[in-house]
C-alpha cells in the first residue's frame, strides 16, 4: 500500500519552475563547444566537409642514368614550371656529390648538375609531387618571347610559302589558321607541300615542330610544349608535344593530333622549346625515364597527417585512433542520433503516430541491409503474414510471453522460407533479409495486432503506415553519404544534435496533425 506522499496543507505544495537561464546556457554551451571543435578541425586540420573530396597527389620521378668517362660531367634537366592543370607541392633532387643549381630563363626552368670528375654508371633522380587542381587562371602571359623567323631552304621555302598561302585563303583568324594548318599536316594522303616539308619523318613531334616554324613564318608567335600525361600509374611516361600559340594577349594550347585547342586536363606541361629534356656533356649512354605514381590519399588522411603534427593530443582522442573494425561500428552507431533527431521532429512537431518510441529508427536500421524499396515490401509482407499467424495463435489463448515467443519462431521460419525461395529464384534481396531484425518484426506484429483489436483496423493501419513513412524519412537522413561522412569525421556534431533535440523537447506549439483534430475551432466566431 502506497502512503500517499501529500502534505496536509495542499496549497503549500511547491511546483518548482524550470530554470530557463540554466537550460539555455547549457544548450548554448553545447553549440559553442561543438562549433568550436568543428571550426578547429575544419580550418586548422582541413578535415573535409563533403565526402569523397579527394586531393589527387601524384609522384613523378625522373630517373637519369649515363656512363661517366672520368671527365667533368654536366647534366641539364628541364623542370616543370607553370602548368594549367597541376601545382607542384614539393620538389627534390637526389644526387651524390653533384653540385646543383637551378635557373630560370623567361620560358623554362632548368636544373644543372655538375661534377668535376666521375666514372662508371651515374644515376640522378629528380622527384616532384604535383596536386591536380581544377581551375586556375593562367598567370603566364609572357609578353616578350624571343622568336626568330626560321630560314627555309629551297625547295622547302616554296613549299612552306605555298602552304601558308593556301591556309591563309581558307582561314579567318589565328584560331582557324592553326586548326587549318594541323588539318593539312595530318591529312591522309599527305598534302604535296607537307610531304616535302616533313621529309618522310611524319611523327607528331616533328609535325609540332614544323607547325611552330610555319607559324613563325606567317608572323604568329608559337612554341612547342613538351609534357606528359598524368592520369595513370606508369613506369615509362612518354613525352607528348603540343604547341602554344600567342594570340589575343594569351597563350592558347593546341593538340597537334586533333588540331584543336582542347588539351586534356591530365596534361602536365613540362618545358617549352624543341630541346631535349636532358642535355648531357661528358657522358654517354644517356637513359632518361619518367615514372608517374598516384598517391591517392583521400582528404581525411591528409587532414589526419596535418593533425598529427599540429595537435597529436586531439587526434589521440578521436575515433580515428580506434582500430578499423571498431570504427565500422561507430559508422553505424553515430547515425542513430541523426535518426532519432528526425524521429523527434516527426513525432513531436509533425505528430506522426508510430508503433513504439524508437521503432521507426530500428526499422530504418534494418532497411540498411535490404535497401528502402525492397525493405518496405519485405517488411509489409512479413508483418501481414505475421498478423495472420498471430490471429491463428489467438485461438489457443496462450499467455503473452509464450505467444510472443511462438510468433518469433514463426517469423524466423517465414524468413527462412523467403531466403530459400529468393535464392532459388536468384533474387538478391532475399539473402539480406536474414539480417532483418527479427525481434523488431515480432514486436511490430504484436503491437499492430493489439492496436488492431483495441483501436480498430484504421488506427492500426494508420500507425503501420506512419511507422513506415517515419522509417523511410529517417532512413533517408541516416543513410546518405553526407550524414555518414559528416558525423564520423566531425563527431562533435553529436553535441549539436543533442542541443537541438533538447530544444525540441521544449516545443510547446501545436503538432501539425493536431491542427486537423482542432480544425473545428476555425468555425467558431468569438
Amino acid at each position, binding site marked *: 500500500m502506497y502512503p*500517499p506522499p*501529500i502534505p496536509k496543507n495542499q496549497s503549500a505544495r511547491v511546483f518548482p519552475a524550470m530554470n530557463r537561464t540554466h537550460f539555455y546556457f547549457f544548450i548554448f554551451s553545447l553549440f559553442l563547444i561543438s562549433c568550436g571543435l568543428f571550426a578547429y578541425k575544419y580550418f586548422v586540420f582541413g578535415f573535409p566537409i563533403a565526402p569523397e573530396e579527394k586531393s589527387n597527389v601524384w609522384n613523378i620521378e625522373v630517373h637519369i642514368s649515363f656512363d661517366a668517362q672520368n671527365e667533368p660531367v654536366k647534366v641539364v634537366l628541364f623542370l616543370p614550371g607553370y602548368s594549367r592543370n597541376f601545382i607542384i607541392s614539393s620538389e627534390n633532387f637526389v644526387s651524390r656529390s653533384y653540385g646543383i643549381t637551378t635557373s630560370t630563363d623567361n620560358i623554362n626552368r632548368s636544373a644543372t648538375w655538375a661534377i668535376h670528375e666521375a666514372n662508371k654508371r651515374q644515376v640522378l633522380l629528380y622527384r616532384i609531387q604535383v596536386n591536380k587542381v581544377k581551375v586556375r587562371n593562367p598567370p603566364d602571359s609572357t609578353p616578350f618571347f624571343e622568336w626568330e623567323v626560321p630560314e627555309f631552304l629551297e625547295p622547302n621555302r616554296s613549299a612552306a610559302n605555298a602552304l601558308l598561302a593556301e591556309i591563309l585563303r581558307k582561314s579567318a583568324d589565328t584560331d582557324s589558321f592553326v586548326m587549318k594548318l594541323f588539318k593539312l599536316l595530318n591529312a591522309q594522303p599527305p598534302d604535296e607541300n607537307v610531304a616535302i616539308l616533313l621529309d618522310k619523318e611524319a611523327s607528331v613531334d616533328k609535325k609540332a615542330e614544323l607547325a611552330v616554324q610555319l607559324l613563325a613564318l606567317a608572323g604568329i608567335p608559337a612554341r612547342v610544349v613538351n609534357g606528359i600525361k598524368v592520369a595513370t600509374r606508369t613506369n615509362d611516361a612518354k613525352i607528348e608535344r603540343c604547341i602554344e600559340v600567342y594570340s589575343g594577349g594569351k597563350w592558347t594550347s593546341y593538340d597537334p593530333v586533333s588540331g584543336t585547342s582542347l588539351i586534356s586536363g591530365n596534361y602536365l606541361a613540362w618545358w617549352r622549346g624543341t630541346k631535349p629534356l636532358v642535355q648531357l656533356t661528358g657522358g654517354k649512354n644517356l637513359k632518361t625515364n619518367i615514372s608517374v605514381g598516384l598517391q591517392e590519399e583521400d582528404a581525411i588522411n591528409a587532414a589526419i597527417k596535418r593533425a598529427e603534427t599540429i595537435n597529436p593530443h586531439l587526434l589521440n582522442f578521436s575515433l580515428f585512433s580506434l582500430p578499423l573494425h571498431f570504427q565500422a561500428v561507430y559508422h553505424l552507431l553515430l547515425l542513430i542520433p541523426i535518426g532519432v533527431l528526425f524521429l523527434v521532429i516527426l513525432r513531436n512537431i509533425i505528430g506522426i503516430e508510430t508503433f513504439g518510441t524508437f521503432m521507426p529508427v530500428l526499422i530504418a536500421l534494418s532497411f540498411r541491409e535490404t535497401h528502402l524499396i525492397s525493405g518496405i515490401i519485405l517488411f509489409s509482407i512479413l508483418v501481414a503474414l505475421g498478423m495472420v499467424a498471430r490471429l491463428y495463435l489467438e485461438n489457443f489463448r496462450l*499467455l*503473452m510471453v509464450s505467444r510472443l515467443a511462438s510468433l518469433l519462431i514463426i517469423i524466423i521460419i517465414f524468413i527462412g522460407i523467403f531466403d530459400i525461395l529468393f535464392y532459388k529464384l536468384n533474387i538478391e534481396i532475399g539473402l539480406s533479409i536474414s539480417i532483418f531484425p527479427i525481434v523488431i518484426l515480432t514486436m511490430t506484429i504484436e503491437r499492430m495486432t*493489439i492496436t488492431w483489436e483495441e483501436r480498430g483496423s484504421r488506427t492500426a493501419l494508420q500507425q503501420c503506415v506512419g511507422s513506415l513513412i517515419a522509417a523511410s524519412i529517417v532512413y533517408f537522413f541516416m543513410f546518405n553519404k553526407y550524414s555518414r561522412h559528416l558525423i564520423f569525421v566531425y563527431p562533435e556534431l553529436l553535441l549539436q544534435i543533442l542541443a537541438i533535440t533538447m530544444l525540441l523537447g521544449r516545443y*510547446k506549439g501545436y503538432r501539425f496533425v493536431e491542427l486537423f483534430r482542432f480544425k*473545428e475551432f476555425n468555425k467558431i466566431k468569438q
Partner: protein
Amino acid sequence: MIPKLIKQLHKLGIVGINRRNIDYISKYNKRCLYPLVDDKLLTKKLAIQAGINVPELYAVVTVNHQARDIHAILKKYSTFVVKPAHGSGGNGIIVVAGHSKKGYRTLGRTIMSEESLENHILEILSGVFSIGGHADSALVEYTVQLDPFFRDLTYQGLPDIRIIVFLGVPVMSMMRLPTHLSNGKANLHQGAIGVGIDIATGITTTGVWFNDIITEHPDTGIEITGIKIPNWENLLYLAARCYQLTGLGYQGVDIVIDKHKGPMLLELNARPGLNIQIANCAGLLPRLKIVEQHYKELNTLKERVSFIQKYL
C-alpha cells in the same frame, strides 16, 4: 489557412499535446504518484480511505490458481464487472448481467462458459490489457446501475463524466456517451460522444463525435445539448477531493452516477486527453493560467470548487 487556424487556436487558448506535457503534466504530476491512478485497485483503496464513494470491490485475482476458485465467490452476485487493474481505454472489461445453466450471461446477451471467463481472467493476469504488457491483477466489482437520467442519452454501456481538476480546482468537464460504434465504451477515439458541460452550471453545451460537432445522439436521436446534470455541485466536490487523494496537480476524474448509490469515482487519469476542449468549444489555457496564479490562496474545498465559477 493553417496560420489562420493556429492564430485562432492561440486566441482560444487551446492546449496542444506538447504544451500539456511540458507545462502541466511534467510540472505538476510527479512520476512517483502515477501508480496511484494507474492501478485501479490502489485508487479504490485510497478513495475508500478518504470516504469517497466507489463501486464495491467483490474480489481480486492476483495469482493464476485463484481464477479457478472465483466461481464460488461470483455465485453470490447476480451481476458484476470483471476488469484489469491496469487497463486502459475500457479494454478487457466484461460485464456479467446474470447466471445461467451453462455459465454467465454477459451484457451483449451472450453466454460465457465458466472456463472462458477463467481464461479471460488469466489473460488479464498475463498482462494482455495492461499498459506496457506487465503482469496484472483482475478486479471483480459492483456493476454500476444506469441512472434513469442517463438511460435515454446512451446506447448501451455506461456514460461517465470526465472532470479535469487542476491543483484542486475543477476547470473543465464533459460527459461521455457510448454509441453503437464505440461498442458501449466511453472512449472518444473509439466512437463515443463527448458532450461539453458548463463547469459552472452543469448544463451540457455541444457534442463532439469524432471530429464533428453534433447536437443529438446518433443512435437514439435524443437532444444532448442544454441538459442539466443533476447534483452538479456534488460532482464538483467529488472531483476536487481527488486532488488530495493522489496529489496529482493535473488529472482527469471519471465519475459515474449509480441509480441507487449516487455519484461514484470510477477512475483517475494522470494524462487526460485534450478532446474535452473540442466538446466545450473552449481552450483550457486561460483557465489553467488563472488557477496557476491563484491556487495558493485557495485553502478549502469550497473555495476551490467555487473559484472557477467566479472567473468564468
